[in-house]
């Protein structure tokens, strides 16, 4: 169905190829997982399949890509659209209509289907993807996860034979993501759909796919084959594989391998010595927020201690982002917020920013300077710290600390998701806040970057910083936080110690918890901490 033959592609105005001599042959009906670090060329390869490369972006191409008999050198993206459906990351920025149903219909209209047929397909797609209640809603009022589901649905509405998905579940909470993946699997099986999917979270997908393509540094294909064959070559294989590696067991996905892993995990005993909580850094009392007649955040009360991380969990649209934005002063709320003993409700954002750092979802809007280094200087200028003698040293130290010295001169918005996130973090951390609010920091990040961020957060905690992280990624929450708060449709549904809280709520259990049926170990870092190997490489 898809034949990629010695494809080398270089973007316009760059010297280094984004894809280097890649050859793949994907048969009809196969599901192929595309993996690799951020910036390894996954999105580029997907673009080569749906025809955006080379026609939309330009650049230099060698080799050829044939999809369903159509050579992409001769057929543009809009011709290939009948054959290839595409759903991207950050779907909100690609919506062309205002309402869900219209968005589902758009591709069908472009294809010239009859009105009745379009209506039938829209209805069917909406039902199968459980978008029913969303259909009449404006797109800009949907949560990130809902938007992603609409984008996937819109790609599928035209019933393409090939489906190209660029990190389709990265914004979804565990339940919706599993729902989408189950649905995709059924679809692939029933309709013989050929699927090419790039994804960082391998744990969920590895057992489901037929083939795995691993892209290495500089756009080279490093491994290609069945999941079990490729697994040993992958730097990251999901929580279970990583747990096996942490325990020096051979990684595997077979029943036997999992049984052996389970036995080892059950024998594991947590090391004593829980850290005692420091003073209260951020005290939230009855914070609530109402937006028109739509969304409402019911009163939240919470203490965030020094050196502690609290995870704010909840499905898409549960109010996690709203809570963080209220704390930062970006939304007017009711209730009290105390930062280091001082009431801050009336304080403007810029004043709160002296102690409180906030990094929003998708930090691309957050970065606006010409270079990474300049981003850091911008913060210093805003805080009137640029004249300080140690300014340059501080900037350089920050660049090194966040592993950005090699990209210091690059344009921030051209960086990979992980690098962009690090740039945004460095840009707020240079102001030396005492409390950090992170909104879905792992979105679009590869696993290595996620693990690195988790290590970084643990370092911050040891240095006495307080961290609040809104996430739908339970593995990440388990890896970084002591306590967690679960929001459900704007209400606090549970507060408690993270591992126990995740375990008590069936739908939130981590992979290790599901395997062992116990609250701990909840994540790989529990094992690593135990082994004393924590943070050796940071």
């Amino acid at each position, binding site marked *: 169905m898809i034949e990629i033959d010695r494809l080398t592609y270089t973007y316009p105005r760059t010297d280094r190829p984004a894809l280097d001599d890649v050859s793949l042959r994907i048969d009809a009906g196969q599901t192929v997982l595309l993996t690799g670090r951020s910036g390894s060329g996954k999105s580029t390869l997907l673009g080569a399949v749906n*025809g*955006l490369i080379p026609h*939309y972006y330009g650049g230099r191409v060698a080799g050829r890509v044939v999809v369903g008999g159509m050579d992409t050198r001769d057929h*543009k*993206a*809009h011709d290939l*659209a*009948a054959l*290839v459906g595409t759903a*991207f990351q950050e779907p909100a*920025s*690609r*919506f*062309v*209509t*205002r*309402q869900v*149903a*219209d968005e589902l*219909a*758009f*591709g*069908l*209209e*472009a*294809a*010239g*289907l*009859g*009105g009745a047929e*379009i*209506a039938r397909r*829209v209805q069917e797609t909406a039902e199968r993807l459980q978008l029913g209640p969303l259909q009449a809603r*404006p797109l800009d*009022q949907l949560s990130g996860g809902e938007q992603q589901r609409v984008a996937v649905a819109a*790609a599928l509405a*035209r019933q393409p034979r090939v489906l190209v998905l660029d990190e389709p579940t990265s914004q979804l909470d565990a339940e919706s993501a599993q729902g989408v993946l189950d649905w995709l699997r059924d679809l692939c099986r029933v309709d013989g759909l050929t699927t090419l999917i790039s994804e960082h979270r391998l744990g969920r997908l590895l057992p489901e796919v037929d083939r795995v393509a691993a892209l290495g540094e500089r756009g080279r294909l490093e491994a290609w084959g069945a999941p079990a064959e490729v697994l040993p070559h992958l730097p990251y294989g999901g929580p279970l594989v990583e747990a096996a590696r942490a325990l020096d067991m051979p990684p595997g996905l077979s029943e036997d391998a999992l049984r052996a892993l389970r036995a080892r995990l059950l024998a594991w005993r947590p090391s004593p010595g829980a850290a005692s909580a420091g003073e209260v850094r951020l005290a939230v009392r009855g914070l609530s927020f109402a937006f*028109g*007649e*739509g969304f409402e955040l019911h009163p939240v009360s919470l203490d965030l201690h020094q050196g502690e991380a609290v995870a704010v969990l909840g499905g898409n649209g549960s109010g996690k982002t709203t809570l963080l934005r209220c704390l*930062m002063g*970006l939304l007017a709320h009711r209730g009290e917020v105390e930062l280091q003993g001082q009431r801050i409700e009336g304080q*403007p954002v*810029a*004043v709160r*920013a*002296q102690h409180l750092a906030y990094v*929003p979802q998708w930090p691309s*809007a*957050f970065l*606006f*300077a010409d270079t990474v280094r300049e981003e850091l200087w*911008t*913060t210093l200028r*805003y*805080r009137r710290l640029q004249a300080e003698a140690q300014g340059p040293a501080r900037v350089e130290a920050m660049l090194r600390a966040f592993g950005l010295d090699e990209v210091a001169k690059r344009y921030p*918005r051209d960086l990979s998701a992980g690098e962009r996130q690090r740039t945004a973090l460095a*840009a*707020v951390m240079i*102001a030396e806040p005492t409390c950090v609010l992170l909104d879905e920091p792992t979105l679009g990040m590869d696993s290595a970057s996620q693990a690195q961020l988790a290590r970084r957060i643990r370092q911050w905690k040891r240095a006495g910083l307080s961290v609040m992280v809104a996430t739908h990624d339970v593995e990440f929450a388990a890896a970084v936080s002591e306590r967690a708060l679960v929001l459900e449709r704007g209400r606090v549904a549970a507060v408690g110690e993270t591992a126990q809280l995740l375990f008590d709520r069936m739908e939130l259990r981590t992979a290790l918890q599901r395997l062992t049926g116990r609250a701990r170990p909840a994540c790989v870092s529990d094992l690593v901490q135990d082994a004393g190997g924590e943070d050796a490489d940071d």
Partner: protein
Amino acid sequence: MIRAQTQHPVAWMAWAASGAAVALLVRNPWYLLLIAAAATAVRWRATGERPTPGTVRAFAGLMVFPTLLNFLFSRAGETVLLEFPIRYVGGPYTLEALLFGATAGLQLACLLMLMMTFSLAVSPTDILRRIPSGLGPAGITASIAMNFAPQARRSFEAVREAQQVRGHTPKGFRDLRGIVTPLVILSLESAMTVGEGLATRGWGASALSPGRRRLAWVGVALFAAGALAWSLAPHRAALAAWTASAGAGLLLITLTRGGTRSRYRPDVWRRSDTLMAGAALGLLALMAALILLAPMLLAYEPYPRAAWPGFAWPLALGVSLLALPAVLPDDD
């Protein structure tokens, strides 16, 4: 919460066109105020949000600039408010200049209000869909252009927010310099992203077949020849006009016919749309008639001596028709 769009995009286009025409033709502040009130009412009905003091301030601010400009630099008018014994800058500063500037500002504000309401009611896609199917790729370009303004607003908010989060206190106009570059870059990037989405979803696939493309070029050539003949040989105007019309007709047919695009939920044309479009066209006709028959009714000329602007009930009623979308029933 934005109400689901109830009126047909074409009815909205007629509404916006007639509103804008009136705002451009009329200088009389009574009628301009009526337009502003109508646009506000329609917007209020559409969003369900009452106009905030912030919005009122923004529009007042918009009016200040032309008012001051005219007050400071126009020397005409008999009612002198201020005069200083200094050459060139001493005045006289007149009431008439102030009034003339203010009405120009009011015109601007009215146009902006109409356009804001229009863009709320009609999405770029509604307009995109009305681009002839033969111009598919041009449609992508057009949509990138149309998405630029709303994207720019969103990008502006995002950049402002990011600046505050990083410790920057907003300082109004002085911030503009730092915000323009990221704004343009962000907006262009997002507009390009929309184009990417359009392409992968098959927009533009119904572009012209080679034969049709040649036919379209023949149309362009005929039209150009007609226009050229008109300018070179004015005495053969009839022939030139026929040639140009034939070219334009051919172009129109090749571009609009035979496209494979269709509509899910084609916009339904209801009685209320007929009413709305009819009222808009009626208002346009009234304007045209008044320009020919009684241009003084539309004008307001404060020079040389300020007087109260005139007020004609029939014209006021005509202009009030612009508020019709605010009172039309929600659904049939």
